[in-house]
């Protein structure tokens, strides 16, 4: 789980997405196929080649006002099309912390 902040080369080996944080409040967001952002992982545009990933990231980074720190991350596409984070970091970002918060939401 190398930090995506250190991501330099774009080389994907499986289904991937572009994710970032929303500028005004920091909420985790995903780039959609409609060229906008969604806080719902199931809306994420899925790319399967490095060229597609590069194009999606380029388009995402161009939105410097709406999003911060866009990067490519792996996803797991399950039978039936459900999308889950492709590693523990993305799982935690989409599902929340793995611990009980001191104050219930």
């Amino acid at each position, binding site marked *: 789980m190398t930090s995506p902040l250190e991501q330099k080369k774009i080389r994907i080996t499986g289904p991937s997405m572009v994710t970032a944080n929303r500028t005004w409040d*920091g909420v985790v967001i995903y780039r959609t196929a409609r060229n906008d952002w969604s806080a719902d992982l199931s809306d994420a545009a899925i790319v399967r080649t490095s060229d597609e990933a590069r194009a999606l990231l380029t388009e995402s980074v161009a939105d410097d006002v709406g999003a911060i720190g866009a990067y490519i991350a792996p996803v797991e596409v399950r039978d039936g099309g459900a999308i889950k984070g492709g590693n523990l970091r993305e799982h935690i970002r989409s599902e929340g912390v793995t611990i009980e918060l001191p104050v219930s939401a």
Partner: protein
Amino acid sequence: MYAYDELDRTIINERVEEFRDQVKRRLSGELTEDEFKMLRLQNGVYLQLHAYMFRVAIPYGTLSSKQLRALAHVGRKYDRGYGHFTTRQNIQFNWIKLAELPDALADLAEVGIHAMQTSGNNTRNVTSDQWAGVAPGEVEDPRIWSELLRQYTTLHPEFSFLPRKFKFAITASDHDRAAIKVHDIGLRLYKNAAGETGFEVLVGGGLGRTPFIGKTIKPFVHGHDLLSYVEAILRVYNQYGRRDNIYKARIKILVHELGIEKFAKEVEEEWLQMRDSALAIDDSVIEDIRSRFTYPAYQKLPHMPDELKKAAHDPHFEAWRKNSTFPHKAPGYAIVVLSLKPVGGPPGDATADQMDAIADLADKYSFGEIRVGHEQNLALPHVARRDLPALWKALDKIGVATPNVNLVSDIIACPGLDYCSLANARSIPIAQELTQRFANHETANMIGRLHINISGCINACGHHHVGHIGILGVEKNGEEFYQITIGGRADEKAEVGTLIGPAVPYGEVADVIEDIVEAYLALRARPDELFVDSVKRLGVEPFKERVYATR
């Protein structure tokens, strides 16, 4: 408590309005993220996994009850109802919205709290002994000098863009509770043979990717010369510190590569040019700062009041008193440590409700003052011993009276992969599991003083290198693994721990730690030989054999 003057208040308030304008320009698109990033970092605002994280400074770990209530208010109004006390006497809020940050800063500014220089390549929050001013045997209150450094380093134009971050720590006691040997500059206050106040100056300590124990660069610097000497060090670092490689940019690398003698020579040459400049500190400056610290009017109280004798029959109270209260310089008073390490809880977290309740108890029992330690616990520094039974009941009610201070479940841990964008592995669930394994107080007492420190990555915010047992999260093929070190310590005998062998998977960490502790219990020379002393005597081999024999 230190009372800010008009200049301090003006600086803080102007900074809030400056940042409000910067945030507004960022949200409108006038500033790009590249342009804004440094500005937000210099105001303590990071981007983490789920949200922005907001780090607030608690200079030298001293808080008033009013300030703690303001932190509770920020947690409740702008965050999710809690905060996380860090290993450098700061507090962090994990769910802050950028758009609301200026309002949060304005609310904190009303009570003299800010987030300036809690991040960025500048001088960070000056830390000190959390028992400063109340510890028996202390030479003098180190916060006087901490405050001098705070004023000197805040917004210092020459040192706002250093090669990398820069951290000071000061102690004035024989027992170092401020971990000065693992700071960029560590200062040990003492009086020389002539009775003059001065400092042993250590330089080049630090943890992270490349841990070093600080080296003494000058055995005695007179208090009058503190700022000029520190400035000489900063100037040499600013000139020669590496800016081409973030991993080699800290002063510890420069000191290591130049060697302490050559580095000291460079500093000495620089210092001699400025020693008698405006940086020479007049006694009146120190006295002015000293006069702005207020101290309680202690009463003459008995050491063993009736209330304490009566409560001694309650074993739960006695367990807490023996573990969590400490001698005070004033007869009849005690320092009370509030454990933020409940069994199964995240280390260092406090809810807004707890913070409010602690503030009320500080008003009632501790002259309105609270301290924050780098071990991620709080303290009430001026409690009359007659009040201990009543205070214990109140602390127990809000969940901060777990009698585990300095014991195996008093774990220091960074936020790890649950929150942090740099982390490779989780820290908090490991800590939670360990506190459950060692929840039995009698067993923990029998084990004795044992510090476990956990970091979720090599940046070492959990100070794993100097834990008696250090746990470092790493990533192997997408899985969480943990390296274990033993024999580290952060006090006056500071040492970096030794790796015992290959990293172990997430699910085995607690078993491994139990194996190490069991090995210690079998190997210690006598019941009062501390874990860290057993490791020093025996080396890591017996522990390594125990851990890896069956793995």
